[in-house]
């Protein structure tokens, strides 16, 4: 029988100031700070009680787009572009054929393997999102550009898998393909599907999940990816829910969509976003419990994992910890009540 309600984080966590203020300088000293920040974040995760610690909050990466783009040839940076509010990222312009020049996450995985005996999950920015978040000055169309990103990601996953085997860790390597842009162009769902298939083609011994957030309609995602080899979907829900406690449909308006997941993807698991990463309010264990209780009306608990909506990097470390802590408490409340 599947384990019920495995708790996990999604990826990023706020960097300590000693790292965020020095990160861009690079060099050996910053490398040491990345390791220190990873250890401290893993400690926070342990204290909260979550079971899957990811890669310790992505302390080795500045930002999900830029990190990959910096390890590739063919991308030029002109400066920062707004993501939301005063949050910016360096959006690259693809000016020539893409080529992966060095591993994206191998150093991070090696380090986390060595210091975290817990379950690990490696997030990798997906090819569709890399394509969508780039300015295309070179490729004839978006499909071609996305497929070249897919080839780079497939090469990366193969090397991560090799490292996983070499380390002697048991079980499959968990790989989370981050695709926040997945549903932004409904007419391009075939491109998304092709990139997922190409990115994981022929790779054995991995558990593949996709993470999508702030989508207007998940059903197009379920439909489009139903035939791929993805094992699970880690999705945002809490941002679109109310903050009222209760298990009535109006209060739990966001989680009504879980029914679609259950109907359309009967053999996959769902990473249920139960806490909003864009507000400082730390939802109470009771509110999170109510969200979970509502979801299990539609989906077997063995197919549900619990996570924040998205990475917690936009919140302070204290708030981030509080949200993870209450998520675990909510899981315990459910266990006590059943």
């Amino acid at each position, binding site marked *: 029988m599947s384990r019920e309600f495995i708790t996990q984080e999604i990826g990023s966590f706020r960097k300590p100031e000693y790292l965020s203020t020095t990160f861009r300088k690079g060099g050996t000293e910053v490398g040491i700070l990345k390791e220190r920040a990873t250890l401290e974040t893993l400690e926070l995760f342990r204290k909260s009680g979550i079971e899957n610690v990811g890669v310790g909050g992505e302390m080795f990466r500045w930002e999900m787009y830029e990190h990959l783009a910096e390890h590739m040839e063919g991308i030029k940076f*002109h*400066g*920062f*572009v*707004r*993501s*939301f*509010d*005063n949050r*910016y*990222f360096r*959006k690259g*312009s693809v000016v020539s054929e893409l080529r992966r020049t060095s591993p994206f996450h191998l150093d991070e995985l090696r380090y986390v393997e060595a210091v975290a005996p817990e379950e690990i999950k490696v997030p990798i920015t997906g090819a569709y999102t890399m394509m*969508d*978040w780039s*300015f*295309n*000055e070179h490729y004839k169309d978006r499909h071609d550009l996305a497929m070249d990103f897919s080839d780079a990601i497939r090469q990366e996953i193969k090397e991560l898998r090799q490292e996983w085997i070499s380390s002697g860790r048991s079980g499959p390597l968990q790989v989370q393909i981050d695709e*926040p*842009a997945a549903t*932004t*162009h409904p007419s391009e769902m075939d491109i998304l599907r092709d990139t997922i298939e190409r990115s994981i083609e022929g790779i054995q011994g991995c558990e593949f999940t996709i993470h999508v957030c*702030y*989508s*207007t309609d998940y059903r197009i995602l379920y439909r489009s990816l139903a035939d791929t080899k993805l094992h699970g979907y880690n999705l945002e829900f809490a*941002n*679109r829910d109310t903050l009222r406690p209760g298990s009535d449909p109006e209060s739990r308006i966001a989680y009504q969509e879980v029914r679609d997941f259950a109907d359309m993807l009967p053999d996959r698991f769902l990473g249920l976003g139960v806490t909003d990463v*864009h507000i400082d309010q730390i939802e109470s264990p009771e509110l999170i419990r109510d969200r979970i209780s509502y979801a299990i009306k539609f989906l077997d608990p063995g197919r549900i994992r619990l996570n924040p909506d998205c990475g917690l990097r936009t919140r302070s470390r204290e708030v981030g910890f509080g949200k993870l802590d209450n998520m675990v408490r909510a899981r315990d409340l459910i266990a006590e009540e059943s």
Partner: protein
Amino acid sequence: MDGIKRLVYGIYPRSDSLRIQISRWERKKVGTEDLRVEIRKEKEEIIEAFRTSSEFYTDPAVNWHDLFRPVVGLLDGVSFGRLERYMETNTFYRQPVINALPTLRADFHEQAVEENLPPPVFQEDANSWLLLPSPYSFYRASQDRAGIGFDKFSEAVFSAYEEIARTNGKSSIVLREIFPYDDSIPSSLGNLNGKFNVILVTQGGIRKPAPGKFAGKFYSVVVQEEELGFVGEYSGIPGIPIIDAKNTRLENTEQLRNRIKETRENLGERELLITTNHHLDFLPRIIADRKLGILKSLGGQ
């Protein structure tokens, strides 16, 4: 080029230094008054560049996080909702939630706008056009919890806009769409025509003439080139987007000149308004500056 008018509208990308200052302000390392000074200074610099590059421009709105939030902050009856993706981009906005018929807040002209950076919401630049979201996009981007519908919402919002314009001493308004229309421009969007000079910057989606009559002519309606025929009679100056604000590739000036020449010939040598297909906030600042330079080079002699 003769017969050409240029428009720069919408949010302009913040400079790196302002972005960093705002980040410090968020962490309470810079005071609100200091940030207000920085914002004014940056706006003045950008407006100076706009003045030499265009005939018409709006406030550069570098203190706006998105198109709706500052306006929502001026209204009663509309509140801030969840974070929503801004159309098909990697940017987000706080979704407006309509709880009642919107009315202008009594203290709208002096309040510090909640969830926003320090005012001024609008720059006190005498020549700039007032930037406002069109009620059509405002409504489509919102969640209508009160169930008041587009027509009533539009009427109420325009009433608030009139007051905002008068208080700011403005007679000229740019209404900006972020959504394409279903097939035609709703005739209620012309309700300020006659009272103000209005430029309506659309995102296309026009396949037939407006079903009803407009209150008067727009100063200009910016549409896709193939849609010019549907709006000619109520657009004082026909307008088209010719600069791509969604790609860093720089336009070839000579090709643009030829395109403009051809379009004007097709329009019987009428005046033509040219602009960008979105506001320039989608671009890195250095590229936005270069694109502004391209627009400048296409101007009159």
